[in-house]
């Protein structure tokens, strides 16, 4: 089990992580969701012993990443956001290198990486620097797993990756979870929340919610509708001036309109828009998703400075 208690970390005058507390259960697939600059990487680096917290304590089972960093590094597999393997070594050489460093062999734990490694094995003599993004990702994951870690820490493995490769990467994580590995993964893509057992929503160094995705969504307290007209931009501007509007923003094909009143009539919204010249007005029932919750929880946080 992983326990993070009251962790804070500052760099000069910027507080990157502010009093964060999270518990992660053994065998969980845990998602850390937030945009660039939220503090996700800093938090992960404190978990994996690469950075020392200013305040607070972390325990990985019975180990303290500050005091027991050598032991911690044996039980952790870490895939940083930036590709960090040896670009002038081949696929096979990289994998053997990491196995040797951890005092094991590729054969010993091959069963763990087999499904992933087989996809890049035909190119095992190719240098890592010459691989496509998707192949680099698979190699990095193989290298992070070769010493059979108890905990896998993945920092934005799917950023900048196309939708197909993202879907496949999450399938790989699911099968690793089934093999009993605890996984912490950070991502800026809100739609990946549903693939995690539990998620923490992070922005500005703080955790704004931490729960099962379905529970976070259930706590969304306002009625919400999907709205579409033939001029969606004008509808957005018009709805901002509507008396019952709590919030309104683009969301795929429809606008998401959030009502500050619990009881209201869809017909009134339709009339409001028709009175302003909108054609083909549609108002439909929708369920809020994680992104709606993120917007609700973080909307008063905007600052111009970094």
């Amino acid at each position, binding site marked *: 089990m992983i326990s993070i208690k009251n962790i804070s970390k500052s760099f000069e005058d910027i507080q990157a992580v502010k009093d964060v507390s999270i518990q992660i259960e053994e065998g969980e697939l845990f998602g850390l969701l*937030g*945009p*660039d*600059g*939220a503090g996700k990487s800093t938090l992960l680096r404190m978990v994996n012993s690469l950075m020392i917290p200013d305040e607070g304590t972390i325990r990985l089972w019975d180990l303290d990443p500050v005091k027991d960093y050598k032991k911690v590094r044996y039980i952790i597999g870490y895939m940083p956001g930036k590709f960090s393997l040896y670009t002038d070594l081949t696929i096979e050489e990289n994998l053997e290198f990491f196995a040797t460093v951890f005092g094991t062999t590729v054969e010993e734990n091959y069963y763990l990486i087999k499904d992933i490694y087989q*996809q*890049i094995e035909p190119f095992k003599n190719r240098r890592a620097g010459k691989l*496509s*993004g*998707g*192949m680099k990702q698979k190699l990095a994951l193989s290298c992070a797993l070769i010493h059979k870690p108890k905990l896998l820490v993945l920092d934005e493995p799917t*950023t*900048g*990756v*196309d*939708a*197909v*490769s993202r*879907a496949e990467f999450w399938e790989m994580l699911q099968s690793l979870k089934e093999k009993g590995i605890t996984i912490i993964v950070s991502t*800026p*893509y*809100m*739609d990946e929340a549903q693939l995690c057992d539990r998620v923490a929503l992070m*922005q500005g160094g703080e955790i704004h919610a931490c729960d099962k995705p379905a529970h976070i969504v259930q706590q969304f307290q306002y009625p919400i509708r999907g709205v579409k007209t033939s001029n*969606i*931009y004008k509808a*957005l501007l018009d709805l901002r001036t509507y008396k019952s509007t709590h919030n309104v*923003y*683009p*969301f*795929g*094909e429809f606008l998401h309109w959030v009502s500050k009143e619990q009881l209201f009539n869809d017909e009134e919204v339709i009339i409001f828009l028709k009175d302003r010249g909108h054609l083909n007005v549609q108002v439909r029932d929708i369920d809020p998703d994680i*992104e709606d919750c*993120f*917007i609700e929880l*973080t*909307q008063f946080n*905007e*600052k*111009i*400075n*970094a």
Partner: protein
Amino acid sequence: MHNQSHEINSTEPIIKVDKLVKRFGNFEANKSLCFHVDKGEIFGFLGANGAGKTTAMRILSGLSKPTSGEVWVAGFNVNTHPESIKKNIGYMSQKFSLFEDLTIWENMRFFSAVYSMSKKQFKERGQELLQELGIWEERNRMVHDLSLGWKQKLAFTVAIMHKPAIVFLDEPTSGVDPITRRQFWEMIYEASAEGITVFVTTHYMDEAEYCNRVSIMVDGRIDALDTPENLKKQFNALNMNEVFIKLARPAVNSSQ
């Protein structure tokens, strides 16, 4: 500038691509692309990593020449008038090219000069744009002090300052939070309402639905092109993410 594109007929497409081929040695990055983009349209240009999007975008913006085929942008042929194209477009890449150690206002002044705007034009347009953004009072801040979201908004503002006929956006919203991402799309809507054509790539499939029309590139070809609504119907999909995966999945797998 606007006055240089006066020859464009309003019913004529702003981008016309006919049998565009681009080869690098034996590798065909663009395989006979044919499509057009209408004036004022928000056009989504999607595709898996390595499908050939960047190659095509570089040609459309006059930075590279086709191996064969005809391409017209803002009324100019890329083979014969790439410099005229560059003057009539704006471009924002994911690694936006703002000067970190200049202020907001200095960056804008620099790019206004690149696009040969007069001092008067620059002052008026610059003030108007920063007031709309609500950061006029902040204009003397250094760019490196800005958050990622504000840098993106500023980079977009700089790209449309000279009122180009078309603005090209290459993954403009990577990494920013959901609220900033939406504020950014509002700026896109606004530019489009002013008549600027928007040509945009993204990995966020919900953003594909904000576009008037979307093309999906697979292995150097355009395999689908229509409104998001029609594409969802055609592929019997709930959202654009499903459409994209149905089209691109076989190709991504075969290339590895």
